[in-house]
């Protein structure tokens, strides 16, 4: 008792210091990660055998034009200076011009990213809402037929090629049954009705009160989102199951049963509360994967998202667009990491 009492004293006397230290450490590691990411994209941009000047001025430009642009891009400066120019550009959200359509890359990304975000968010939502209960139920009924079904469902999710599932889904639900909208985000008839605010059509149409547009957008997104949701479900449910199994064999679960709690309270109020932290990490990872843009899904469903944007840019050697997209995807990963770190602190009293 005395040992813990003195611990308590110590904790009460200096509560702020560790907190500040922790925050500084987190911020520091974020800064280092971002610098590292930008350094990598910078180096890739420089070592690529693509002449950025030539790409802008074209093959037939005169030497003086070439030199002018060369200087304008700062390519005559030492590499380290160029790197700081690059940092400064990125901080201002300037990723340069797309060589393909001569528009600022940042504008392109601002257009395609919300499309991916809308799809990924709905997908991960499906994955959580179905995957977490499925994993819990499978763990609770370990070895039973429910567990077997959950296993098969996840296995199919892991191993089915997404383009096959996507095409089959389109064929059945769009082609044959006509229950859902086809490829794309909206039917032509509904396009350009609602003003773009967030870039996410479901949100924009809801904000504008255009419910017919909302319904149409929903009918388009539901199939690709379910598909992504299925993949996310497969992963989330398996992880949930194994986390839950670990907790269900813990002694405090027996304590809860000894108290006379119902099995439901034992599972959700006691065991489940203890897997929240691990689950958050898994969900963040799953979400990040979807946000990166599921290229195949976006291509099959003609979804103008960041995955298909980067792929198209890559195939046409549009380096600014590729690197810009990469930086954005990297930033998303970092942001989700910070977020799951914060939630971790909220949900685990031991981390305080």
């Amino acid at each position, binding site marked *: *008792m005395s040992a813990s009492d003195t611990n308590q004293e110590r904790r009460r006397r200096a509560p702020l210091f560790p907190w500040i230290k922790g925050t500084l450490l987190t911020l520091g590691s974020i800064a280092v990660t971002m610098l590292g990411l930008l350094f990598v994209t910078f180096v890739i941009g420089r070592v690529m055998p693509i002449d950025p000047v030539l790409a802008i001025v074209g093959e037939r430009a005169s030497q003086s034009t070439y030199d002018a642009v060369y200087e304008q891009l700062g390519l005559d400066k030492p590499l380290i200076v160029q790197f700081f120019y690059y940092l400064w550009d990125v901080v201002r959200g300037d990723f340069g011009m797309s060589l393909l359509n001569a528009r600022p890359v940042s504008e392109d990304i601002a257009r395609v990213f919300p499309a991916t975000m809308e799809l990924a968010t709905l997908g991960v939502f499906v994955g959580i809402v179905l995957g977490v209960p499925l994993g819990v139920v499978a763990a609770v009924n370990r070895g039973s037929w429910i567990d077997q079904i959950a296993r098969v469902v996840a296995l199919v999710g892991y191993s089915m090629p997404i383009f096959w599932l996507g095409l089959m889904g389109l064929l059945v639900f769009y082609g044959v049954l006509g229950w859902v909208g086809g490829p794309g985000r909206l039917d032509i008839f509904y396009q350009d009705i609602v003003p773009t605010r967030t870039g996410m059509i479901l949100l924009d149409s809801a904000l504008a009160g255009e419910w017919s547009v909302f319904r149409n957008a929903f009918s388009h997104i539901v199939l690709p989102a379910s598909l992504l949701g299925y993949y996310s479900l497969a992963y989330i449910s398996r992880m949930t199951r194994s986390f839950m199994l670990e907790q269900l064999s813990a*002694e*405090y679960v027996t*304590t809860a049963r*000894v*108290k*006379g709690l*119902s099995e439901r309270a034992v599972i959700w109020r*006691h065991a489940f509360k203890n897997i929240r932290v691990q689950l958050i990490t898994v969900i963040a990872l799953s979400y990040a994967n979807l946000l990166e843009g599921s290229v195949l899904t976006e291509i099959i469903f003609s979804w103008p998202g960041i995955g298909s944007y980067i792929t198209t840019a890559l195939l046409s050697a549009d380096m600014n667009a590729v690197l810009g997209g990469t930086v954005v995807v990297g930033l998303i990963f970092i942001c989700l990491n910070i977020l799951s770190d914060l939630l971790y602190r909220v949900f685990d*009293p031991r981390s305080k």
Partner: protein
Amino acid sequence: MSLLEVENLWVRFPTRQGIFDAVRGVSFTLERERLGIVGESGSGKSMTGRAILRLIRKPGIVEADAIRLEGRNLLDLTEPEMRKVRGQKISMVMQDPKFSLNPVMTIGDQIMEAYLLHNNTSKAQARAKAIAMLEAVSIRDPERVMRAYPHEMSGGMGQRIMIAMMLIPDPQILIADEPTSALDVSVQRQVLDIMDGLVKERGMGLIFISHDLNLVSEFCDRVLIMYAGRIVEVCDADKLHQAKHPYTQGLLNSLPRLDQPKKHLEVLKRDDAWADGESVGGS
């Protein structure tokens, strides 16, 4: 009528090598007394305790002629009825408070949960009751402890909290499964004294599981000696040294004693025949 009667209790586990009997036909009764269960590791002490609460997890099987609590056979109860017995009538303190308290719930919430489950009262009343209970297990500053999480507590504090939590619904029987083996020797006695005081004060029945004969003889009225899933001997705690069974004598002889110092402690000998003998009735 006895407080608790256990008749011919078997606990079985199907394994790949066939069925393993962890507890083999154990019978005993418990009055409002302190009953010790002693035996080496794996002799089936914990399984006996958990079987009484019907908390043997699948695929384990519990069989008995009867487990009667004040004449009512617990084996006939439905699961919801059994839940009313757990906590409220029979409770259990387990070995290590580090693992037996929920790490992400405040201590206050965990204690109040135990009370609210069996008593239809307000949260404020449950809170007051929980604080009183923490005081009863000699915890200073209970208000602060209520807000704390288990990892902030030492082992001794944790086990006293556990005792408070298990006694708050006012059960008639407490099963203490090696409640102090995970604690520092320095706090073992303190915790046992507190538990002992409460059990006596409330006139409860206590089943004290341990492999420490010294502790058991000190804190119990009667002792059951278990070996390989059977009860091989029952004796009064103060007459332990008169025990007849060779296993009990072996246990006693392998203990260091201050009053009769020895150069060598005896090695515990075992005999397969003991495992095959009839179980002794512990009443």
